[in-house]
């Protein structure tokens, strides 16, 4: 093997193909760019979290509790000292007099001081400094947009009205996305309508500490751990907050990294398919080299070197594009981030992205390069004799395929948050690829078989062209199909969910819930509703309680036992009801439902089946409840299954009639408003009369769902865009690579008397059919995926809206046609001479 020969020949041989190679590698460029930008962004994110750690919590230490701090904890807080600031949070209706509308919001009442580190960012900026003194409110930007209120308008919370001094842009501890689900309103603690916290459910009490003396908050907290736990008080330190965010965000950007990985994989396949054709065209050259004494290794080395050179160019371009792209990522994700991420190039990320990119390129070109090995010098003497052996007979093919597969799984493992995700992701991707390939092949076959001879010649020839050797039809079905698959799965599941919402809102189902109604308010609220002419569809009492013990063992005792893992079910606050019958959304699965209690002995209760298994209890087990200080002994006499899909008041535990009569209860009333206007009017009327009553209507739930879905769908669209782009690059490469062959065909047709129009039409049919088959493959697979999702995950009815899917199908076909025709231009005009001249 002569190294100088290999280098100089590889360089010379690439002459005239360098433009094409740039096209081949551009699918790779996208993948490398995605990896580099995402990983580099991830590194910057990590650095930002380290730098701004203290502003994440806004303090050195915090305590939080669902109940006001008991006396001994208050004493403890006093003794800890430092600077302190309290806050009380709860959800309540926010009423905007200017618009005469109300909406559920998260209200946070603050004392001066917090945040000790960082700041609340508002518009105008001064508002964050002055709202406490001026008795004003800061309102989440999303909420202000939704109700079209401005700074200077007012908002009423409870019986208190506040001037809106500014809109909230950023707050410590929360990313902006929180505002989508539950918009926040900051008000001063002084002047808070305390009836809201007294009557409403779910209040969070917090105290924030700052230690100017430099005390170690973690050490302090550890020393208090058992005291805090006994009083059910949560605590947080800077380190813990930082770790939490860091873990969550690492998962986020690693997940995004998998997106980059997928486009890299597609890019690799694209490169492989182009190189496959390229190598086939180089066979005569290789044969001549062999006649003149080049060894097999030398010829393979020439093309491997070209591939590596191509990979390096791709990786460099990809890194540059990736660094440019990186400036966009924080803009896209900023809603989800608690910190501001500065732009900086992370060289380790560039190195990793480049390494993976180069690795994938080499692995994927190795397969088609194997073809070089089997070129015999005899091929120079005789053309047309194809003695290609079946690939699977070649142990090298298996080695190369195995290495490529192992390499890909390894890359996925490096990129994924954990190994299970990495393996699952590789497996899932492989399955989708296999299914797409099989489906695509089947479709092409069916199409070719079933093309009626009665169709015009132009159409038949166009379809037959899909079978042209070197056409890479399958590869295009892969990448275009995958892109279409992703987009249509998104569309289909969105439609299924929206349809589900429609079912919820349809016919005789309730669409407006009012809760936190005090017993003495029930009649008046019902009166307001009846006055509007809407039906009272249910009115249910709710008692909040906590689980105190199971079968004579207290939850606290179970907590002490470190060998036991307690679940959410042991710790949560339960909202239970009492009634004499089951409702339509419940089915009894075991035991007998006891609707009454004679007031003697233990109370018979009915448990929801899932929560029972979570608690590890069954019929006959005894549960002790702490109902706001009073202990109640109960025994499970029945298990129920509950259809949670309905907008209904559903309960984990149902007590018999009369058993909770004395306990403090609030009521939930459900009704059905004719339309949004009536719903808004009802909510306004009720909140005016009873500020402590909260309400949610279905439109709000759908709005939140839409907001979440649009964020998720952005990521999926991004993936789909990458794969469709890759598909189009593969298409362009395939057309360019088979250009000469296309010229020969067109010259042949011309000599047979075909006009320019006929030749162009045949080409157009070919591209349209290709786009059609690819998109259809993706859509078919998406229908299967959508059905599985709706059946197994959403447990909803499967619906398909054909119009968006048809538009998608048409778009992919059009794109394929345009890219195909643009790259085929000149084939007809310049073809003749080029074909005649090249007597090879």
């Amino acid at each position, binding site marked *: 093997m002569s190294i100088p020969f290999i280098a100089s020949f590889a360089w010379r041989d690439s002459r005239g193909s360098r433009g094409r190679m740039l096209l081949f590698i551009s699918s790779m460029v996208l993948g490398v760019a995605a990896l580099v930008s995402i990983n580099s962004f991830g590194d910057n994110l990590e650095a930002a979290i380290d730098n701004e750690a203290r502003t994440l919590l806004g303090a050195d230490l915090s305590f939080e509790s669902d109940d006001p701090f008991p006396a001994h904890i208050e004493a403890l807080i006093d003794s800890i000292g430092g600077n302190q600031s309290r806050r009380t949070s709860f959800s309540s209706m926010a009423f905007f007099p200017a618009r005469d509308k109300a909406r559920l919001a998260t209200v946070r009442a603050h004392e001066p001081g917090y945040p000790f580190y960082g700041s609340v960012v508002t518009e105008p900026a001064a508002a964050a400094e002055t709202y406490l003194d001026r008795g004003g409110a800061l309102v989440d930007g999303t909420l202000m947009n939704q109700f079209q209120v401005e700074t200077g308008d007012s908002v009423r919370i409870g019986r208190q009205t506040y001037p809106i001094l500014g809109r909230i842009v950023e707050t410590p501890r929360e990313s902006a996305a929180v505002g989508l689900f539950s918009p926040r309103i900051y008000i001063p603690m002084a002047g808070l309508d305390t009836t809201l916290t007294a009557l409403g459910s779910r209040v969070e009490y917090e105290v924030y500490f700052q230690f100017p003396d430099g005390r170690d908050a973690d050490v302090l907290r550890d020393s208090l751990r058992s005291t805090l736990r006994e009083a059910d008080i949560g605590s947080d330190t800077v380190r813990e907050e930082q770790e939490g965010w860091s873990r969550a965000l690492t998962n986020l950007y690693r997940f995004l990294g998998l997106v980059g990985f997928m486009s890299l994989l597609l890019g690799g396949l694209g490169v492989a398919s182009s190189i496959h054709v390229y190598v086939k065209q180089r066979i005569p050259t290789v044969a001549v080299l062999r*006649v003149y004494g080049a*060894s097999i290794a030398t010829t393979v080395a020439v093309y491997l070197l070209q591939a590596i050179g191509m990979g390096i160019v791709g990786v460099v371009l990809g890194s540059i594009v990736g660094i440019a792209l990186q400036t966009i990522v924080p803009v896209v994700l900023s809603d989800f981030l608690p910190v501001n991420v500065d732009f900086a190039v992370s060289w380790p990320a560039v190195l990793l992205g480049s390494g993976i990119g180069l690795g994938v390129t080499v692995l994927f070109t190795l397969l088609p390069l194997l073809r070089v090995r089997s070129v015999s010098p005899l091929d120079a003497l005789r053309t047309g004799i194809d003695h290609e052996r079946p690939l699977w007979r070649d142990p090298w093919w298996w080695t190369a395929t195995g290495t490529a597969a192992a390499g890909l799984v390894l890359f996925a493992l490096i990129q994924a948050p954990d190994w299970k995700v990495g393996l699952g992701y590789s497996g899932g991707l492989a399955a989708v690829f296999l299914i797409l390939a099989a489906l695509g092949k089947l479709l092409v076959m069916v199409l070719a078989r079933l093309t009626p001879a009665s169709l015009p010649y132009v159409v038949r020839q166009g379809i037959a062209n899909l079978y042209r050797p070197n056409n890479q039809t399958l590869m295009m079905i892969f990448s275009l199909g995958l892109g279409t698959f992703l987009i249509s799965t998104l569309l289909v599941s969105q439609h299924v969910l929206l349809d589900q919402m429609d079912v919820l809102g349809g016919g005789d189902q309730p669409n407006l819930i009012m809760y936190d109604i005090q017993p003495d308010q029930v009649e008046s609220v019902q009166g307001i509703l009846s006055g509007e002419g809407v039906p009272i569809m249910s009115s249910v009492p709710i008692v909040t309680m906590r689980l105190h013990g199971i079968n004579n063992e207290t939850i606290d005792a179970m907590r002490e036992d470190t060998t036991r893992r307690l679940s959410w079910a042991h710790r949560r606050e339960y909202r239970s009801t009492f009634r004499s019958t089951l409702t339509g959304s419940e089915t009894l699965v075991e035991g007998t439902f006891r609707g009454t209690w004679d007031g003697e002995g233990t109370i018979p209760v009915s448990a929801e089946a899932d929560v029972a298994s979570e608690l590890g209890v069954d019929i006959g087990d005894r549960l002790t409840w702490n109902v706001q200080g009073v202990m109640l002994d109960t025994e499970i006499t029945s298990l129920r299954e509950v259809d949670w899909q309905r907008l209904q008041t559903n309960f984990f535990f149902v007590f018999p009639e009369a058993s909770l009569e004395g306990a403090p209860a609030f009521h939930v009333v459900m009704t059905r408003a004719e339309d949004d206007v009536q719903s808004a009017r009802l909510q306004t009327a009720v909140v005016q009369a009873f500020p402590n009553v909260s309400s949610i209507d279905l439109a709000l739930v759908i709005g939140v769902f839409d907001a979440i879905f649009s964020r998720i769908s952005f990521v999926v669209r991004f993936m789909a865009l990458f794969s469709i782009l890759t598909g189009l690059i593969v298409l362009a490469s395939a057309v360019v690579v088979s250009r000469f062959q296309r010229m020969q065909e067109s010259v042949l047709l011309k000599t047979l008397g075909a006009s320019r129009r006929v030749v162009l039409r045949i080409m157009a049919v070919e591209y349209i059919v290709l786009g059609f088959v690819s998109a259809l493959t993706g859509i078919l697979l998406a229908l299967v995926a959508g059905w599985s999702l709706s059946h197994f995950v959403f447990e909803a009815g499967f619906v398909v809206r054909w119009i968006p899917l048809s538009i998608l199908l048409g778009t992919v076909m059009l794109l394929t046609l345009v890219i195909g025709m643009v790259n085929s231009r000149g084939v007809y005009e310049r073809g003749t001479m080029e074909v005649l001249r090249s*007597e090879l």
Partner: protein
Amino acid sequence: MPVVLAVRDLTKTFKSGDRSLTVLDSVSFDLSEGDTFSIVGPSGSGKTTLLGLCAGLDGPTRGSVSLCGHNLGNMGEDERARVRNEHVGFVFQSFRLLPTLTALENVMVPAELRGRRGVSAQARNLLAEVGLEDRLGHYPSQLSGGEQQRVALARAFINEPDVLFADEPTGNLDTETGAHLEEIMFRLNRTAGTTLVLVTHDTELAGRTGRVLRLKGGRAVEDRADTLP
């Protein structure tokens, strides 16, 4: 004169399925340095097959080929390639220039493969000898058929081979261009002492070689050694 090519009992059988086809049947001959030799016969008689076996492009079913003292039968693919590189030049009916290389670069390939450096002067001389000194930087697509074949001839001589194999070298050329090419071949044969092995349909060309082997259905039906004209 030393023997450069010794062919013994050479037989080639192709199998397709359970039918086998013997396209070359027990052919033997010896050639010495400076000999000129042509293989003639009807289409499909096994001429190209024989040439390929002699140059070690393929392995025989039976029999042996010894090229410049190397028994090709005992060698692997890459070893045969090395022998070709050192001792063999090749000219094809359809030229087979590498399309991405200039005329000059095409000529240099065999020398560079050998790891030789600074061969461009020698390549220029060879191109001058075939009358193409002003077409050095042209690509094959910019050359006529006859010009391409002359480049191929220059390429075949760059490593100063002991044997030149040519499979119908003038088959794709008109008579006049063909005659010009033959002139160059025989001149190189005389000046460098290269053994010529030609496959041809052209009886006139065959008549100019010192020895003619006529094949029919894979068998040597005539092996005539004339005195040079």
